[in-house]
């Protein structure tokens, strides 16, 4: 039961590891950035999961007279900021990959290293 109740957190840990594996193991720079993106998305899931309150609703709907349970809006706001940060990072990373491709003619890490050695 606890195992199932913590489902979101298992997925968080799994995504985090998939992302980290791709960043470390893939020689292709774009695939590395994809891994980084998965890695960051895992953290978004962590924040959104912790904001959920059982039976809670969006904190904008207020019914007069009855007690309301709201989900916590703050982690959503925080993660909006973190998503923007993530997009900027990936965009900048891709821009650097484009420049690397212009200068080296390849985006494979081992070939770039070979070229740097020849320099």
């Amino acid at each position, binding site marked *: 039961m606890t195992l199932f109740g913590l489902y979101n957190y298992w997925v968080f840990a799994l995504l*985090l590891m998939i992302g*980290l594996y791709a*960043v470390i193991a893939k020689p292709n*720079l774009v695939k*590395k*950035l994809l891994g*980084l993106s998965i*890695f*960051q998305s895992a*953290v978004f899931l*962590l*924040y959104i999961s*912790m904001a959920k309150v059982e039976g809670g609703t969006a904190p904008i709907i207020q019914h007069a007279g009855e007690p309301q349970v709201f989900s916590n809006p703050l*982690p959503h706001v*925080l993660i909006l*900021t*973190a998503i923007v*940060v993530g997009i*900027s*990072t990936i965009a*900048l*990373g891709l821009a*650097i*990959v484009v*420049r*690397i491709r212009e*200068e*080296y003619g390849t985006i494979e890490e081992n070939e*770039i290293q070979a070229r*740097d050695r020849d*320099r």
Partner: protein
Amino acid sequence: MWRAQLPALAIAVPLAAAPLAALLRTGLTAWALATAASAASFTIALMLAGGVSGLNELSYDVGSWPAPYGIELRITSFSALLLLIITGASSVALLAGRQSLDAAVAPARRPSFYAAWLLALGGLAGIVASGDAFNIFVFMEVSSLATYILIAGGSDPRALTAVFKYLIMGTIGATFYLIGIGLIYMMTGTLNLTDMEARIHDVADLKPILAAVGFVTVGLVLKAGVFPLHVWLPNTYAWSPHIVTAFVAACSTKVSLYVLLRFDFMVFQGSLADHHVQFSGFLMPLAVLAILIASGVAIAEGNLKRLLAYSSVAQVGCVVLGASLMTATGLTAGIVHMFNHALAKGTMFLAVACLATRVTSLRLENLAGIGRRMPWSTAAFMLAALSLIGIPGTAGFISKWYLITAAFDEGALGVALVAVILVSSLMAVAYVWRIAEAAYFRAPPGPDTAIREASPLMLVVVWAAALANVWFGLLPGLPLSLSGEAAMTLLGHVQ
């Protein structure tokens, strides 16, 4: 009245100047604006340093939302010292750097380059001024993204691969920090550092907090370039534009170390039993390895900037070693070493920028006889190098002296640590000697008259920075009192 706004202005001035610089048409006006904004920030930092003397802390509620609900800016002695380092390094580098940057950055890109510089400056100032864990993350990313642009902004293609590695590793570090504060928020419901400290005491299940300690520590250690997570650092320093190296080498690792110390001491030390044992048990071996291995690599390195970069890894180790001793003297040594090392290494990289305006290759064998061709630049470099080694009369001596005093208090272990510190200074002598030997005792490669001294403005600024190394070696009052107060504040949180 307006003095109360100073903490916010320290961040707002560079951040507001950044888009203005991007709108300007010519590199010259953008440079002038960036330098003026940077100098204004330095003035604000000086006023803040005056405001926090005597263990005073300045708190500022952003948008008048009171802490812990709103974002709080909190200026302590520690943050004031770091603000001085950041804004001082930026001002000096910009003032000296126009000619060198003009050579590295294409004319059309100069205004946006200076905008990125101001964003980096504003982000770094934000990290040290903020008292809110998530706000620190956002400023960390603002400054990191801007720094990547600065590093890749030059003409050397090797900077691109270096900055890609830095981007990947820096993002992983920042994301680890984000996971850590997420876990703490989950258990305490707060993001304000002061409030966190108070609320962790009421947390029944400490397991998520312990996981958070791991994430926050590893994330920040990565960003600070502590051995063995320093692998992004040498190439980043080596291939970025020379003036950018001077700025980045002086500030960025120190700011991450600042967050590591502030976060760890404020939030974890007071609330977790035996945390200080784990803290020093984890960091002290890394610090010793950093000092010994990185100094060794520096002795064998052939490229001047990479050599200095490895020396920086070793000096980061010295800062961490001081902090991991967990005593007032040790922490003071670590913190004042942040200031002194920023001063020495910043000056050295500025002097390298002077050399690089006249020579094309910075490999040691190509610098033969440079001391005769460019006597003033080389002499300024050597003066700062003496401070790096820790010769009495220079700033570096003050921190090494404190570090050794602190280590001696540790008994048998302390004797071993003193040996490590002394060996590190000897190794610094060895790698500085290699540079001196190339610069002064080898004949210039030919009757080449094209190489002459760097421009007067650069020389004046570099010499001012070099003499500051001596000034703060003889009169270390300001950095030492701020460091001492910072150490006392940090230790006040320990259980």
